């Protein structure tokens, strides 16, 4: 069972004594249907990570409500898998153990889990590295191992925070298609944060555009392609139209901080 996400007027204000409070999210509402794939783009520091952490139960709200699968999010859920901006592998475990760690933590390590991880490692080209330690892998390989760890959990909700940012263009494209294939098979509800507009359009059924801080949703674009995406998708004339349309939000913005973050947003 995959789960739908409902975000209602979510507000996150970071306040510490002695410093003026930071409003990271304010009045943000977003729905993702069960099994949907939504990409989120927005300038750096607009609250994308905060939104993802709030949906994953790692960040409490100061206002509003988030429901996943109909239940209000009160904390981390076992059925949610995260992928962070950094690979976040544990250096004292080899790659296989890193990928099996969630099952060991949940005490649900089954032969099926093992074989799922093994085949995922094969798929991302890490089969020969299962007994290597993270510091023996390149940054891109570490990121792929982190993807395996997330997908190995067979989650009902997949939260991806710029998962491919550290990859070279070639590997990144390959990982994009892999992710699309995996999503097509598992149809797990997926939220993808990315700084790459083409990646957002290539993978998402919808692309959500956020404003600079405090993050609000300024556009929510239905992507007119079917669930299967490939190199031809990017050749479609509508693809570049949508990319140009989304890019327009960042070029038009008068906000200085948004201007500064253009470097991130342009691919």
């Amino acid at each position, binding site marked *: 069972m995959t789960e739908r996400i409902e975000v209602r007027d979510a507000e996150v204000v970071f306040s510490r004594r002695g410093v003026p409070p930071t409003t990271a999210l304010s009045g943000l509402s977003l729905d993702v249907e069960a099994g949907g794939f939504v990409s989120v783009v927005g300038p750096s520091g607009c609250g994308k990570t905060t939104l993802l952490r709030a949906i994953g139960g790692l960040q409490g709200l100061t206002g509003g409500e988030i429901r996943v699968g109909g239940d209000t999010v009160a*904390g981390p859920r076992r059925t*949610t898998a995260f992928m962070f901006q950094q690979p*976040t592998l544990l250096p004292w475990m080899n790659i296989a153990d890193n990928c099996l760690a969630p099952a060991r*933590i949940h005490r649900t390590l089954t032969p099926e889990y093992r074989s799922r991880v093994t085949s995922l490692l094969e798929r991302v080209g890490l089969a020969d590295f299962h007994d290597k330690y993270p510091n023996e892998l390149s940054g891109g390989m570490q990121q792929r191992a982190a993807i395996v760890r997330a997908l190995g959990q067979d989650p009902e909700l997949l939260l991806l925070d710029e998962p491919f940012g550290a990859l070279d263009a070639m590997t990144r494209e390959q990982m994009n298609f892999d992710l699309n294939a995996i999503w097509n098979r598992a149809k797990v509800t997926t939220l993808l944060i990315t700084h790459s507009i083409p990646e957002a359009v290539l993978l998402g059924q919808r692309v959500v555009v956020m404003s600079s801080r405090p993050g609000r949703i300024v556009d929510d674009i239905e992507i007119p392609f079917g669930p299967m995406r490939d190199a031809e998708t990017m050749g479609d004339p509508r693809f570049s139209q949508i990319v140009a349309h989304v890019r327009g939000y960042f070029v038009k913005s008068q906000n200085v901080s948004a201007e500064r973050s253009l470097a991130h947003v342009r691919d």
Partner: protein
Amino acid sequence: MSATEKIEVRAPQVDRAPAQRGPSKVGAGLRGRGLAVGAVMVFIVAWEMVPRLLDVQSFIFPRLSEVIAKLTDATTVTLLYQHAQVTLYEALVGLVIGIVAGVGLGFALAEWEPARAAVYPFIVAFQSMPKVALAPLFIIWFGFGYTPKVLVVVMLVFFPMLVNTMNGILSTDKSRLDLFRSMSASKWQIWSRLLLPSALPSIFAGLEVSVVNSFIGAITGEFVGADAGLGVLLQQFKNNYDTAGVFAILVILAFIGVALNQIVRIARRRLVFWQ
């Protein structure tokens, strides 16, 4: 004789090394070892020859052969052995107590913020105080036996262990904590699978300091007041102008220090293999 022994001892390492590290590093390692062996030989020759050439009197600076004579003389060896046992006992008991207490309290303070806030000023005050200065006080309170020396050792071991354990845990990577929270890990799982391994490098850094400190503590405690131990023997030798005997003790202390340091380093390499 000794040359053939050396070759026998080294041969397996040379065989094993290329598979792990690649050939260039092996060459560099051998060269480094060659330099070290050379330096030791120069040191040995100099220790024997320089006092002889400068005609320094034996009670000022004994020649190496005189020190070796001490270290092979049966009565002196018995004496050294008995007193070394006492010092070793004080240092090791203090070391174990200090490590257990320091690591334990380090964990507790890292976990519990209010306690950390309350205790921190005291830790800073103690850290900046020369703790061996407590030795006379401990002698007044506990007499001339083992207890005051063990306590001095504990003081010298406890604080580096406490501070390093606490800092190691507190500097755990925040994104890894996020990862564990996202997997709904229990508190115990977070402690045993994340915080402890994260703190290990820092704990071992504390351990290396502590091992050295433990002998400083034991010897100082014995200087202040004791009836047995290498510190006592050292002072007796000094009072008799038996400088070769003093050097013999220094050599033994150096050997014990190197041995303990090696144990810690081997343990570190095994337990913190990823660094």
